[in-house]
């Protein structure tokens, strides 16, 4: 990589919440600190991290839909331009689109067809082709979310990103609950998007999934980028990654012996290993 301006550039990004503790005392909880990553056009970058590590918040920050008690620091850039709130509002749905994490992001009183249709551009053809592609038959078009199976609803969510024509797609856990063939179909369409020159940021807790599609993997723990590694190298051997948390992730995979990551807290080592985890794009 290198000289080209990345589609998305995240640098030293921090995110914290203001909360009221005891007796109206304000306390700040930091969820993401010093996160650095970039996504170029035509590549898939996976962000892998445990539950509650702040992955969804990162996605929401890029789209400017954080809760009001959140504050951010560091910089987010889209095509080299600093992402201010007003720029985010202009870009979202057009240049940047989100595949949200859960089915609750579907309007309970809206039919599938309308749901997939972008609120900004009315294109019946696009809806139709997306529905065919994700095996949502014609009868699914007039169904409400409560009438869809978990997998179908998930496919509707993915479909929403494809009707937007965005250059950067942020997929927040796009595959849980999907049948193996639909997982392949989903990953296939993410790859296709990348092949078309779009950038994809895929958020997942499943490093195996990241190995399958991603060009690069950012390992994320407790709000810190532990390291960004080349996916192929990472998959081949844990020796190709530096940080103990990354190594542990690798060892936890079934094909590598299934050693649990849980039992141990890598918190201190992360702090110590920050330098070692610096981005390494060589």
């Amino acid at each position, binding site marked *: 990589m290198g000289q080209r301006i990345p589609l998305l550039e995240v640098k030293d990004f921090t995110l914290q919440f203001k909360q009221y503790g005891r007796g109206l005392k304000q306390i700040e909880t930091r969820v993401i600190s010093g996160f650095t990553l970039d996504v170029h056009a035509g590549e898939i970058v996976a962000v892998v991290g445990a539950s509650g590590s702040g992955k969804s918040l990162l996605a929401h920050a890029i789209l400017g839909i954080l809760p009001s008690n959140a504050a951010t620091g560091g910089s987010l850039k889209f095509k080299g331009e600093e992402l201010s709130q007003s720029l985010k509002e202009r870009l979202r749905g*057009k240049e940047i689109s989100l595949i949200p994490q859960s089915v609750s992001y579907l309007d*309970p*009183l809206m039919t599938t067809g309308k749901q997939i249709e*972008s609120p900004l551009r009315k294109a019946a053809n696009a809806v139709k082709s997306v529905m065919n592609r994700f095996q949502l038959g014609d*009868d699914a078009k007039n169904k*409400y979310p409560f009438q869809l199976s978990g997998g179908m609803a998930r496919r509707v969510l993915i479909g929403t990103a494809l009707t937007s024509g965005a250059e950067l797609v942020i997929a927040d856990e796009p595959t849980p609950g999907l049948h193996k063939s639909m997982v392949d179909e989903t990953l296939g369409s993410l790859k296709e998007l990348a092949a078309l020159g779009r950038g994809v940021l895929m958020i997942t807790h499943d490093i195996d999934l990241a190995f399958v599609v991603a060009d690069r993997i950012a390992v994320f723990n407790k709000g810190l980028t532990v390291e960004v590694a080349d996916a192929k190298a990472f998959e081949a051997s844990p020796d190709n990654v530096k940080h103990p948390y990354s190594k542990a992730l690798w060892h936890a995979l079934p094909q590598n012996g299934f050693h649990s990551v849980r039992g141990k807290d890598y918190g201190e080592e992360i702090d110590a290993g920050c330098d070692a985890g610096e981005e390494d794009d060589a």
Partner: protein
Amino acid sequence: MTIPLKPNPPLALPRFVILLRYSGKKALRLLLLMFAVSVVCFVLMKFSPIDPIEAYIGGEHASLPPEQIEHLREYWGLNDGFAVRYVKWIRGLLEGNMGTSIVYNQPVADVIAEKFSASLLLMGTSWALSGILGFSMGIIGALNRGKLVDKFIKLYCLTLASAPIFWVGILLLIVFSVWLGWFPIGLSAPIDATAAEATWGDRLYHLILPALTLSLTGVASIALHTRQKLIDVLDSDYALFAKARGAGKWLLFKRHGFKNILLPAITLQFGTIAELFGGSTLAEGIFSYPGLGKAVVEAGIRADLPLLVGIALFASAFVFAGNFIANLLYAAVDPRIREGARRI
């Protein structure tokens, strides 16, 4: 009712069968309710200290010869025990005869028909007005949450929700009729005109203040409810997602807000018919508006049992119909109920 996830179960019933079965169940319940209401009315009257004859002829009671009074008692059927009177009344009812009103000396059905047409105008106007006004106020408040307009709407609703109708009515009466002289003090038509002579213009003119009284107090619950519902929608995940897809405030409301708040508003508005009935009784009293509300008060204080039971039954059927319509509409608008009901 559990909501099945699987699409199209094989045992979906035709829609009208469900509707029929539902209506049948409701009709049965209404009959039971009316039976209970009539019994309660008779029991209450049994313990009422008011003597209808005394109330009917007023102070001249003493001057009337006892045989005359006895004759009247016989005529109104007051000499029977309450149980006998109840049986006679039920028998009449089954033949379509609701009895004769003592106060108006007319068949109860006729009295109700006449008074209700006046009340309907009043209730209908204030119902529609408070519904539309309250719904809009709720939307405006929610879309401007925390701003001055919102605070004002909230303050208004909270004040009005706890203000008694008679207080608001008297206030309006004092300000607009007594001080400013813009509106008549009461009645539904000019006092020197007979009912047939009164023009629509006259009627509307006399309607404004009582209708305003009911609407001003009626908006509170629907406005607060709609406001909260819309806020919930705007805070939902799906609204967040719509924002992430580029929808602005107005589009967000159009695409997701309206349909999601219309439903609870409709239900609530039909559910308020009971309150409206009670409210119009008070408003009619204040403005001497000759409707059903005034008639029921007369029936009560003058121990006119046939009229009282008649109005009570009519009112329960009316309120029941309101709730029934609310449920049907609810089912028609909400797909979760509409589609879900077919597979019970």
